[in-house]
């Protein structure tokens, strides 16, 4: 699904959300929220090793590196090697869960474990440390996984939503790594040595660890040290190579792809903005009104509620280290695609030209400010927020100031920011399905 929902919607704060932050001697940065009510701990470890660092001809390298890190750990220091099944059993026996995955920017490792008894917590952290630090890179497993992934990619390409998302990403990002397509061909070029090389960039000095759970600062510091203990120690971190920025579109592009489906999948948009953009809050509030705010957004009102044209219609930004796309998406009966597209484009044009009304702005603020506690009502949600602060070097009081920042947004702020960031006359449009 091409549901481009902003990756960084989770911000918030509660005066009670005290984030503790420190840097370890290794350079690893630690962010902790103590949450003692439930005897459990959630940890996320992030590295600058995501898909944006994949060579174009080896797109998917970050994903498969993360995948293969879960397929076995090597013998070291008297501890026996564990294959993928032994790892699965070990995590199940601990009643804990560990995962690795890569996004466009980050490679992330997540651990969820009980904190009682202490020996169990210790074992879970040690096992996680081995997966982070000592993957065994089994060749036969990679051959199998490559075959499986390639088959799944070919299957996905039989679906109109996948084809639309691929064509759209390609047109919006062009040469930028954010738009690179992982395919059976790129997987065929990836070797275990490529993965070892990506893994070698994971050093403690580059790690950002976020922890939420029933541990205190001293425990968190010791756990963080243990989690990174099996990565190379004592190395200094040279800056990683710069990744180019997403370039603006020079001209509009309309792509129609015939497909024998019941519905047409419609996507349009352009490169958006970077997470560090000073207009983050006007753009957040504005998009909530335009198409991010669920049943009350303008796009839902015009496309779904008034005309019954689509089950799902949305707009979203995806700001990251680079300017992720602004995307409007909907699906509609194939013969209605032109009408739905016309309506949605008009909504976007009007919004960029005139901005929201005073009443819309008030409604958006009421919802965003009022619902703020819902962004922090579980350890899992807190972890996402803390990791976001860590990754983007946001101030530690970011959550405490969040509602005030939303409240301070004005109508001219939104108009100005949208007119600067969006050019409705130069957007990419992809329609898959319906008559060519």
């Amino acid at each position: 699904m091409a549901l481009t929902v902003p990756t960084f919607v989770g911000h918030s704060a509660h005066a009670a959300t005290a984030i503790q932050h420190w840097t370890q001697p290794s350079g690893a940065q630690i962010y902790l929220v103590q949450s003692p009510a439930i005897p459990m701990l959630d940890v996320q470890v992030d590295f600058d090793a995501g898909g944006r660092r994949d060579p174009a001809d080896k797109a998917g390298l970050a994903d498969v590196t993360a995948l293969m890190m879960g397929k076995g750990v090597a013998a070291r220091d008297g501890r026996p090697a564990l294959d993928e099944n032994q790892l699965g059993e070990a995590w199940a026996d601990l009643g804990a869960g560990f995962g690795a995955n890569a996004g466009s920017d980050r490679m992330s490792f997540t651990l969820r474990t009980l904190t009682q008894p202490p020996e169990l917590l210790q074992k879970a952290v040690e096992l996680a440390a081995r997966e982070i630090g000592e993957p065994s890179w089994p060749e036969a497993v990679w051959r199998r996984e490559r075959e499986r992934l390639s088959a799944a990619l070919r299957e996905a390409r039989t679906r109109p939503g996948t084809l639309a998302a691929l064509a759209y990403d390609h047109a919006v990002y062009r040469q930028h790594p954010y738009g690179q397509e992982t395919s059976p061909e790129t997987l065929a070029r990836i070797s275990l040595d490529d993965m070892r090389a990506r893994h070698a960039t994971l050093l403690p000095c580059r790690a950002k660890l976020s922890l939420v759970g029933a541990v205190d600062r001293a425990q968190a510091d010791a756990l963080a040290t243990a989690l990174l203990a099996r990565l190379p120690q004592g190395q200094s971190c040279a800056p990683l190579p710069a990744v180019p920025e997403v370039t603006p579109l020079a001209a509009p592009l309309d792509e129609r792809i015939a497909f024998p489906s019941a519905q047409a999948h419609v996507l349009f948009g352009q490169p958006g903005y970077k997470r560090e953009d000073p207009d983050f809050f006007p753009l957040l509030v504005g998009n909530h009104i335009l198409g991010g705010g669920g049943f009350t957004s303008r796009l839902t009102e015009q496309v779904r509620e008034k005309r019954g044209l689509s089950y799902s219609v949305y707009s979203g930004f995806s700001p990251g280290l680079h300017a992720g796309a602004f995307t409007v998406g909907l699906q509609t009966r194939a013969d209605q695609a032109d009408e739905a597209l016309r309506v949605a484009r008009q909504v976007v044009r009007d919004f960029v030209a005139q901005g929201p009304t005073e009443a819309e702005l008030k409604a958006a603020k009421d919802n965003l400010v009022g619902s703020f506690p819902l962004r922090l009502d579980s350890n899992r949600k807190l972890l996402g927020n803390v990791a976001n602060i860590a990754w983007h070097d946001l101030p530690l009081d970011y959550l405490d100031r969040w509602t005030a920042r939303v409240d301070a947004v004005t109508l001219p702020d939104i108009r100005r920011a949208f007119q600067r960031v969006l050019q409705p006359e130069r957007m990419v449009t992809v329609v898959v399905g319906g008559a060519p």
Partner: protein
Amino acid sequence: MLLASRAAPRRLGAALALAAALGAAAPASAQRPAPTPDTAAQQFTLGNGLSVIVQPDHRAPVAVHMLWLRVGAMDEVDGTSGVAHVLEHLMFKGTDKLQPGEFSRRVAALGGRENAFTSMDYTGYYQQVPAARLAEVMALEADRFAHNRYSDEEFAKELDVVKEERRLRTDDNPRALLGEQHRAATFTASPYRRPVVGWMGDLDALTAQDARAFYQRWYVPANATVVVVGDVDPQAVLKLAQQHYGGIPARALPVRKPRPEPPQPGLRRVQVKAPAEQAVVSLAFKVPSMESLAPSPGSDDALALTVLSAVLDGYSGARLDRALTQGADRVADSAHASNGLYGRGPQLFVLSGVPAPGKTPAQLEAALREQVARVAREGVNEAELARVKTQWIASQVYKRDSVMGQAQELGSLWVQGLPLDADARLIERLRQVTAAQVQRVAGQYFGDDQLTIATLDPQPRDPQAKPRAAPAALRH
């Protein structure tokens, strides 16, 4: 995901959060009892028959308010499939006091998030709000529970939205089509044979009056429960519920026809041809349902079957993974097992998978059945049993992290007529299941006669094919 809303969770068998949690690889540890929440859930019944269930959780200043109805797609009759789900959409379209869309605008103004869901067994509506706003969403929900109202024009537009939902989720989704056809072939008399979203032909013929009649019939206080979880006091919630829901007049609950599924006289097969690259094989075995937490032969077997599903597929590297998806000559790219355990209708044990390149659906079918046969021949070992039980116990701790998840569990237990502490008691019962019981059920329920097999037969996409034209009947 946010907009994938007013949605219809559809699963073969009962769509139960608990069963899903048991099937998923959630963690745990066998030696320690799960810590219990500081305050247990409480249940009340109002004078008009409406239930109220409250679970305090004071970690954050929030509350989730849910209204559950013991009515879903299984309560529909022929010709109006999908009406339970269409009605769920229409509940957002107004009341005597509120214009279409006004409900959502008011919830949003309160800082709320909201949605609704329909399954075979139940329909639910919810709002997540700052705890201080509970009274206001309760007033809104009680109003539409008693006074839902919309024009025929609003009905027609929303029906178009639901048809788009069906196209998106089912018609253009070969694996969902397979599931729909599989259900339809598996059940003969049971209403579980119908898709929650409804057949397109029935949606074409559905009228506003059908939806209003369904609402009149089933949306009565004795068929509903209010669930509140969060930073609240049970007595205060009870008072609010009396104030807002207590005045809704009691009405008789309609008589439900049992519509039991007759014994299956032999193997059934269904084939679905659809544009795809990969085949899919799915085997559904009719199995007993857990009728209550009290020991009984059927319930004991249902529990043992759930343990069997976890031994086969409860964690990464479990039996199906190991035997079918690994090695140079692997037969599958994926392989899964799940047991329905309980629901308002008949339950299924499902084995499914995607054949590996070069392998046939028939080979995968045989390999899946061989793994069950192996358990029947050789049994399971104690380490496997301990492992799956450990995971369930840990999951009892982790589930407390989600206010929403707790409310969903309480609501779905009420739907089934189970007590509020059923989840913990269920895990106690699962812990008592022995290796011998697992071995016995593996030998008992996996013959041909209670089996229905569905196969997705992938078709190449014809590049010359014209887009499917919408029949004229759709345009209105």
